């Protein structure tokens, strides 16, 4: 049940978990529906999982053949777009009792679709993949519209500017290409290369721009990831958010978490008061959800939590959804007891960005 919180002032320092929606596999992505009634998540299975927030009722949509890595809603209609590790995209009427794919793109990308977005006018779906491509599709039909060519490596993140005409896409090498959506070549490129590390003895590039978000005014672009990565086996690094001035493209601030954390910032959301929320993945031992003022460097509030992969702001601006893992405590190196050998679980935690109603009502001690 959702607490009756009407009228409580927005205050990220009072953030608390109002609901934990669990699944039997880790959850990789999540978003609130534009109607505000549902939260939907993709998992380390082939399902798309929808929860009705008021009741907690869960419905799973079948259609994917691999893990679902990203999703996005049509901003006005009832369409949901989900993408998977085999390159497939499905469109669903998300509010149906038992949704089935309305249309599908079996091979939107050669390999994983890593990020999915919808333009603010709702006309175009945008997907980004490990095949270096950013692609535009008609939301109504799934027909291809354009192929944005410019990245030279895996594309990990997308964000649409509030002007409705401009897209930012971030890649493994730390390049953020800025696209005018009427053109297929990048208009300019921002430098976030500090978010990728290739040590002398690494066998692979590690890191990349794992998340992107614009503020409401469109004056700032935040890019999440990690710096100073230690290797290509555990892949831990120092979490970082790069805040760029949008007009100049210059790096304005590098934000760091206050809590111990060792993976990339995988989820970003600007709040109504201008604060920035960032969700960390853990790659060694710890991760957190933290809040920054964009002109600060250290967060003003931090919540330690399990590894997270995706963060989304509710349309009411007062709740965050964070998808991630729930550690069931059994794992590690070596042999196993087969009776206990099951996957870790996942959850979407709904955080309220204000005080608890009861605490707010409680009279202050004199």
């Amino acid at each position, binding site marked *: 049940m959702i607490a009756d919180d009407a009228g409580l002032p927005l205050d990220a320092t009072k953030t608390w978990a109002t609901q934990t929606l669990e699944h039997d596999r880790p959850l990789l992505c999540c978003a609130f529906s534009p109607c505000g009634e549902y939260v939907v998540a993709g998992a380390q299975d082939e399902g798309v999982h929808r929860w009705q927030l008021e009741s907690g009722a869960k419905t799973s949509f079948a259609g994917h053949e691999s893990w679902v890595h990203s999703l996005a809603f049509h901003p006005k209609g009832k369409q949901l777009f989900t993408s998977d*590790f085999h390159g497939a995209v499905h469109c669903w009427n998300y509010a149906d009792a038992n949704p089935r794919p309305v249309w599908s793109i079996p091979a939107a990308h050669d390999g994983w679709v890593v990020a999915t977005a919808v333009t603010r006018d709702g006309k175009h779906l945008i997907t980004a993949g490990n095949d270096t491509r950013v692609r535009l599709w008609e939301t109504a039909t799934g027909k291809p519209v354009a192929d944005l060519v410019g990245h030279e490596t895996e594309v990990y993140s997308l964000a649409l500017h509030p002007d409705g005409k401009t897209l930012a896409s971030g890649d493994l090498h730390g390049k953020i290409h800025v696209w005018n959506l009427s053109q297929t070549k990048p208009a300019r490129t921002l430098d976030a290369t500090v978010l990728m590390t290739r040590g002398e003895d690494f066998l692979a590039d590690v890191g990349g721009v794992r998340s992107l978000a614009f503020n409401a005014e469109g004056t700032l672009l935040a890019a999440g990831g990690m710096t100073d990565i230690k290797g290509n086996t555990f892949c831990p690094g120092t979490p970082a958010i790069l805040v760029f001035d949008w007009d100049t493209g210059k790096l304005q601030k590098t934000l760091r978490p206050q809590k111990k954390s060792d*993976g990339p910032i995988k989820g970003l959301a600007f709040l109504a008061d201008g604060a920035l929320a960032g969700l960390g993945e853990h*790659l060694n031992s710890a991760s957190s959800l933290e809040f920054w003022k964009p002109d600060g460097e250290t967060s003003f509030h931090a919540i330690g939590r399990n590894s997270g992969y995706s963060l989304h702001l509710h349309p009411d601006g007062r709740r965050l959804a964070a998808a991630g893992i729930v550690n069931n405590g059994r794992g590690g190196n070596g042999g*196993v007891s087969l009776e206990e050998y099951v996957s870790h679980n996942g959850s979407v935690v709904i955080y309220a960005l204000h005080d608890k109603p009861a605490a707010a009502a409680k009279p202050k001690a004199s």
Partner: protein
Amino acid sequence: MTHPYACGSSEHAISRRRMLGTLAGAAGSVGLASMLSPAMAAEIKRQNKQVLFIWLDGGISQLESWDPKPKTEFGGPFRSIPTSVPGVHFSELVPETAARMDKLAVIRTMHTEDPNHSTGVPKIQRGSPKNRGVDYPFLGSALAKLLPWPTNDLPPYMHIKPGRGGFQYQDAGFLGAKYGALALGEGRPPIHLYRPDSISDEVDEARNDLRRFVNSQYRQQGRRDAAVDAYEYSFQMAEQLMRRKDLFDETVLSPQEVERYGAHPLGRHLLQARRLLEAGVQFVKVTSYHWDMHGDNFNMHRALVPQIDRPFSAILDDLSDRGMLDHVLVVLMSEFGRTPKINTRIGRDHYPNAWSVVLAGAGIKTGVVAGKTTANGVACDDSEYDAGHLYHTLFQAMGIDPLTTEYMNNAQPLPIAHEECSSINEVLA
């Protein structure tokens, strides 16, 4: 002493006791002789067998390579693809190797005991006979001892690895330093292979005489230990290689050849390995580190597995085209596999319970899979094979009968492979 593993845990440290044990074993090899039968030795010499041993240090995931389990609880996000052998599937990450399954044998039910790098690596590479009180030789050293000593003036056991090279006498265990590995850092020849022009033949001979004299003095003083042996043997090997500088001349390689293998370290090192095998080196080991994907397993396997798929396929083709697969045994393996269970870092941990080894070439049946794992990949469904089974199989493939051949260490007969194990006949030709 540490190995360059990323875990950094105590599991990854080599103990001082172990190190001292190795040195003691190397020093105590006086009087050792192999008991290979004369007929077997003659036949092995006739066949002129060689080995390519590829070691992916840290543990490649069997689920992202040779034993995929798509759409299962622990299967991960990758597809499986058909191979050139009907009914056998590999991960989509190894399309080139999949197309050459008809040249391979895969053991899918390796079931070893040690989940640690520091102890698991030597156990596997030494074949791990238990409770013998000596350090057994790594496979390359064992074969240097058991096979007829090469007459081509090339070291019998060469090791191409990242980082620095040198003489790895510890590999020889109780056999003694002579049977150690000459390691080529980054596949390059030992440093100072090229004598400066300022040193004439006469000067060079004079300084070699001095070196030999000093060594003999050391020995006369009773300091005949493994370090002196190792120094002498490494110098002899360097002298031999000075006559074969052509083996390291990269200008003779065509761009097409380099492209086929790939520009990454494994590509370059496997191409160098082919050249050494062509020259007649008996045992060539190629090591690649950092396959220990505890975090971000799927992005990392996506980046790393093609780095073995491509050059492994290229060298299989080249050995096949040159008619060498008849006498070159190819082994591709790690110290263990990776956990089916995906950990909280989206990684996979160490898993000795059910993992895979790939074989090809001399003495190996082609197009076969030995063993089957359960549907979720957690356990072996039928047969389970330990390192002892694998070493019986490798010796058999080389024409050495592991049931009748023994080492003799200071009058102590020692089996060359674990007595309680036997060969995996499904993969033997």
